[in-house]
């Protein structure tokens, strides 16, 4: 099978080159035969790369340890669940995964694109083939062939890194990859629009679902990554501004900016140049993220092993960026706006400022990530950009963005009148101010958490007001019951109300982030029966009693489990177990350093987070770190709501056009009412 996999990579390389050449030539010369050949090459590329993936999976499941990749990332006693994820756990396998998923997306794009947008497809096929070929070339010529064989066959493999043996790691990397990879399709359409000089809104309509899909995958991937970091890494947080975390955040920021600014182009024919830039930039940032993870240029706990594939990515980044911007510059005269902004107090202007902040934050994160290199280049001094540095710059910017999240929906398109503004802002501003006063009276003085919660209240009220007005309008207009009106309000205008649901999720996330400012922790060494106490930010006292330590063998690990009884204000609320795990291979030989499994008890208010640091002199005397993390559960809820909103926005359908027009009648009335 591995022979077949290796062969599939070579065939994929040739097919990719063929697909790219025929696609470009066919489209530029109008040759139907070449265009058809390119289309077939895209499907064949997809099939060949899937064969390569299948071959690697078979090698993993058959424990073919003669394959270097299989020996490095799997072992005989590894749970089946994680054997699947070994496919993308290492550098080489993840490159194959990247290429294969891209080829699937490319084939899907060829199939699902509406007939009126098919004019772009030859170029789209060519661009996707080029990108997929690059990944195959890296595998074949960059020393990253996952089918490479060893000169001997080990009895057992090393197994997956213990920290990767977590359900979060099974879903988090694929989600992020899907996000990164699917950006290639909008990018390919943007290039197709530039190459074919068809720069009206058609290409934007063609990529609408793709951009949403990519944004959704990135959002879910980032949230799952935060969850994994929280439950697995044991430092009690979920975001550390690590370069690899930042690499996933960068395209998310620019894609979110695009999802807002594209509305202006669709409605008013403005920001054509800007939208193209955002798509090109997002794709380049996704490749940059891949480069950052694989080059070793910046140290990160998430990075793959350093290798020379980084040079390939750097060269690809430079060439692709230069060609994209050159083509973009050549087409600038075709990208004139059809209208201009009419007022600074308009939805368009607020979206523009929102874009400014999104891109500004992306710039700040990129600058911060690269600053250690820049500083060394310019001043010869090495510096570290840790969480305190990122927080200092990005928290104020994030809060400004939160403010705009509330302002945008309250302002009318084109221009808002003063009475309209007064009517729209009254409830949200009152809510924000009330929240601020309550926090100040309650004794909170930390400015950032106060601002996050008060602004959160402002945005929350904005969203609720929008929903209430829509439901009331439908209730009056059609005599629908409240719940039916609510359901139909969302169903008939999924983009708008799905967007509001996303805003709601973002508010919850911000408030949850603010909660971490009230984190408390303590370390204690306890013998069995001894207790330590810790005061919660809510005022109650937790008592942690060390019950004892047990040791036992599990499938691929030797476990040392410490049990702690927890009481809140003297009332027993349960037991928590935290573990040290020594992973072993099938012969009982240790494979990695002992890892820690955190004991977590979550509720809506706070998380109890217990870590067994170790034992004293091989006895049951245990050293613990006890942490209380407020509002962490809301991070996961916020992420879920963001994903739900994204799904609502991209859900197909919404009724027949005639029905939608009729159901949208209330909107006409609302607009009339407002102006």
């Amino acid at each position, binding site marked *: 099978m591995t022979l077949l996999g290796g062969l599939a990579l070579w065939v994929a390389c040739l097919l990719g080159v063929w697909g790219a050449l025929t696609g470009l030539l066919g489209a530029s010369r109008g040759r139907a035969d070449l265009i058809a050949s390119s289309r077939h090459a895209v499907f064949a590329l997809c099939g060949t790369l899937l064969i390569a993936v299948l071959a690697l999976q078979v090698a993993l499941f058959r424990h073919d340890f003669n394959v270097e990749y299989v020996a490095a990332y799997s072992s005989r006693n590894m749970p089946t669940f994680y054997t699947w994820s070994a496919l993308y756990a290492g550098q080489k396998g993840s490159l194959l995964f990247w290429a294969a998923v891209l080829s699937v997306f490319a084939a899907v794009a060829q199939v699902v694109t509406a007939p009126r947008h098919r004019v772009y497809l030859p170029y789209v096929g060519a661009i996707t083939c080029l990108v997929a070929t690059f990944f195959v070339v890296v595998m074949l010529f960059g020393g990253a062939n996952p089918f490479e064989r060893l000169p001997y066959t080990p009895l057992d493999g090393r197994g997956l890194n213990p920290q990767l043996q977590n359900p979060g790691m099974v879903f988090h990397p694929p989600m992020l990859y899907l996000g990164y990879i699917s950006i290639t399709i909008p990018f390919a359409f943007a290039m197709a629009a530039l190459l074919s000089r068809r720069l009206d809104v058609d290409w934007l309509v063609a990529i609408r679902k793709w951009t949403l899909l990519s944004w959704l995958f990135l959002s879910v991937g980032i949230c799952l990554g935060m969850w994994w970091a929280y439950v697995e890494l044991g430092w009690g947080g979920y975001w550390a501004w690590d370069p690899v975390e930042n690499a996933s955040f960068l395209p998310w920021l620019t894609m979110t900016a695009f999802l807002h600014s594209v509305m202006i182009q669709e409605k008013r024919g403005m920001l054509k140049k800007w939208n193209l830039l955002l798509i090109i930039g997002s794709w380049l940032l996704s490749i940059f993220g891949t480069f950052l993870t694989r080059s070793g240029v910046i140290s990160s706990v998430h990075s793959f092993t350093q290798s020379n594939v980084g040079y390939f990515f750097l060269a690809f980044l430079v060439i692709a960026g230069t060609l994209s911007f050159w083509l973009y510059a050549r087409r600038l005269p075709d990208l004139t706006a059809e209208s201009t902004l009419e007022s600074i107090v308009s939805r368009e202007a607020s979206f523009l400022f929102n874009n400014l902040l999104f891109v500004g934050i992306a710039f700040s994160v990129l600058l911060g990530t690269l600053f250690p290199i820049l500083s060394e280049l310019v001043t010869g001094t090495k510096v570290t950009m840790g969480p305190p540095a990122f927080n200092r710059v990005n928290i104020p910017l994030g809060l400004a963005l939160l403010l705009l999240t509330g302002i945008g929906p309250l302002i009318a398109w084109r221009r808002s009148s003063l009475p309209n503004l007064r009517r729209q802002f009254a409830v949200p501003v009152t809510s924000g101010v009330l929240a601020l006063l309550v926090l100040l009276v309650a004794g909170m003085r930390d400015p950032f958490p106060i601002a996050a919660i008060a602004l959160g209240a402002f945005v929350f009220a904005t969203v609720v007001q929008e929903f209430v007005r829509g439901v009331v309008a439908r209730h009056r207009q059609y005599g629908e019951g409240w719940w039916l009106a609510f359901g139909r309000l969302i169903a008939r205008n999924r983009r708008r109300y799905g967007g509001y649901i996303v805003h709601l999720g973002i508010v919850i996330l911000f408030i949850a982030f603010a909660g971490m400012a009230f984190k408390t922790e303590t370390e204690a060494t306890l*013998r069995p029966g001894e207790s330590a106490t810790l005061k919660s930010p809510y005022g109650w006292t937790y008592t942690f009693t060390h019950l004892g330590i047990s040791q036992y063998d599990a499938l691929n690990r030797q476990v040392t489990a410490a049990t702690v009884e927890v009481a809140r204000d003297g009332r027993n609320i349960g037991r928590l177990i935290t573990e040290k795990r020594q992973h072993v291979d099938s012969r009982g030989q240790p494979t990695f350093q002992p890892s820690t499994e955190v004991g977590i008890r979550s509720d809506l208010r706070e998380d109890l987070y217990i870590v067994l640091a170790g034992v004293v002199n091989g006895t049951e005397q245990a050293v613990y770190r006890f942490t209380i993390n407020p509002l962490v559960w809301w991070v996961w809820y916020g992420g879920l709501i963001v994903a739900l909103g994204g799904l609502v926005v991209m859900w197909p359908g919404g009724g027949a056009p005639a029905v939608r027009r009729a159901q949208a009648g209330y909107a006409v009335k609302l607009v009339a009412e407002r102006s």
Partner: protein
Amino acid sequence: MLEGRKVGKDISGRREFLGTVTLSVLSIIPSFQPSHAVQDSLPDSGPAGKLWDPARAGPSIPPTTAGDNNAAIQAIEKRLKCTCGCGLDVYTCRTTDFTCPVSPGLHRKVMAMAGAGMSGEQIIADFVRENGVVMLMAPPARGFNLTAYLLPGLAIVGTGAALVFAILRWARRSRPAEATAGVTSAAPATAAELDQLRHELDSIDA
């Protein structure tokens, strides 16, 4: 995301700080261990039993001292980077990666310096003198480092101001044009056209 901003805040009560630091340094020596260093709800419990296989629980670690929970010490350690290559600050590394060979030593060094009467800023300055500014989790806001702190904000404010200026100019231009367009577009509408428009709007509402 909001962590790390309290750095340096807790080093306020100098007397309290020095007192705690002295205690923590003394607590390293077993004979000076204060009785309240470990909260023991069962003071008469015997010595903890041996584990069946201690090697499985990782390397043995020393008992917690008062200095480990000292907020001032933690604040200092949160500003210093561990040099083991993990990218974490000393406090996070020593309380997360229990196999790290570097962070416990750095922690002991911080405690010793604090015990010798050095202030938080002096301790940090000493580490920087010895290892360079790379030891700091956030580079000092001076010189070229200001680029990282100020450039994003300045770029946003500058671009924002330019946008405001441009939008106001467009708005001034569009008003007279719109007024003219309003006159010309309203004029040719006939009564029949208006009737048709009203009819179509009614049908949408229905």
